[in-house]
């Protein structure tokens, strides 16, 4: 991906209710450079979280997960993600993929605004926590070709 997708640095401004849940982050070009938690994630935990059905990743994706019988094919194989994308790019992709591609089917994992009819069990909550996102990002950067 070449050239900044978004002009300059944007600061996400979640709504009031969400502000208690979501941490602010700065988007620079097509990436979020800084860790959402201020600390690096744990790649081993990231792999486990990525494969957890509740995280939904492998509903669409497949990847180097020989133990998983059921993987999706709606989305690219995750092998090589860490070669194709920087840590910051992977972080923005997980936080809000719609900023990279407005028409994407990949959900925004750290966003609670602009959604319709979210079921009561999930309302006002991001799909993943900041910690979970950092763990997954830390794992994805290890997926090199």
């Amino acid at each position, binding site marked *: 991906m070449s050239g900044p997708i978004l002009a300059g640095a944007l600061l996400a401004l979640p709504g009031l209710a969400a502000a208690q849940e979501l941490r602010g982050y700065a988007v620079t070009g097509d990436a979020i450079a800084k860790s959402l938690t201020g600390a690096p994630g744990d790649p081993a935990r990231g792999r486990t979280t990525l494969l957890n059905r509740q995280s939904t990743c492998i509903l669409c994706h497949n990847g180097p997960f020989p133990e998983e019988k059921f*993987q999706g094919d709606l989305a690219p194989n995750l092998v090589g993600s860490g070669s194709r994308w920087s840590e910051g790019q992977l972080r923005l992709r997980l936080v809000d993929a719609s900023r990279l591609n407005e028409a994407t089917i990949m959900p925004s994992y750290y966003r609670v605004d602009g959604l319709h*009819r979210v079921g009561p069990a999930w309302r006002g909550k991001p799909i993943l926590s900041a910690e979970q996102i950092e763990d997954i990002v830390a794992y994805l950067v290890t997926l090199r070709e």
Partner: protein
Amino acid sequence: MRLAGLIVLSALFAVDAASAEIPQAERRSGYSFMAPDTRAMQDDDTINPGMLWVLDGEKLWARKSGVTNKACADCHQDARASMKGVAAHYPAIDKALGRPVDLEQRINLCRTTHQQATPLPYESRELLALTAFVAQQSRGAAIEPGNDPQLAPFVAKGRELFMQRQGQLNLGCTNCHDENWDKRLAGSAITQGHPTGYPLYRLEWQSLGSLQRRLRACMTGIRAQAYDYGAPELVELELYLMSRARGMPLEAPAIRP
């Protein structure tokens, strides 16, 4: 002026529709995505568990009920003749309500107005059985939503709901059933989402279930708040699905994984 606006709008609508929708020649029932043994189960009435509901429905058809103490058969006689092709044009406008009702609602209207009996709950054994029995009389009939002009705005509303992104996963029905059919969502084949088989026996449910149950499951899957059974939005979605499947043969009671 207004007319010109309408023409521009409908032209836009047509372009949009052409890009998203599945070409006629490529439409496929969920049946064609199934494993051979599951297809065999649907093809053979002696092993299709849905037929148990059909048999129950046949008995209920003849059973007197309600204040009027009338059976369906007292008014409609032999379902094989009177109900032939009926399911292929539902949901249909109910004149008194001025809005579309689906087959389950139609049957319940007969219960409440003509039999003066209590309506049967959604997904109850009795309502599924009667619906399966009525729908089975249309097996092989081509889906033909009525051309009642009163239906048009409801079909349009259903289409809008089908395109709308929703739920925590922020997906629209179209993202899977128009854009990604023939791919796999983890272990499941994503089909084109045609309503040809309902009510149908789903192996995962270990039961017969209605089209509304299926639609609610897809909504919950994307973590959206499912509409309540009987909600106008579900009927509008059913209606859009039927118009989208126009001409495809009905196969109730079908089997699905």
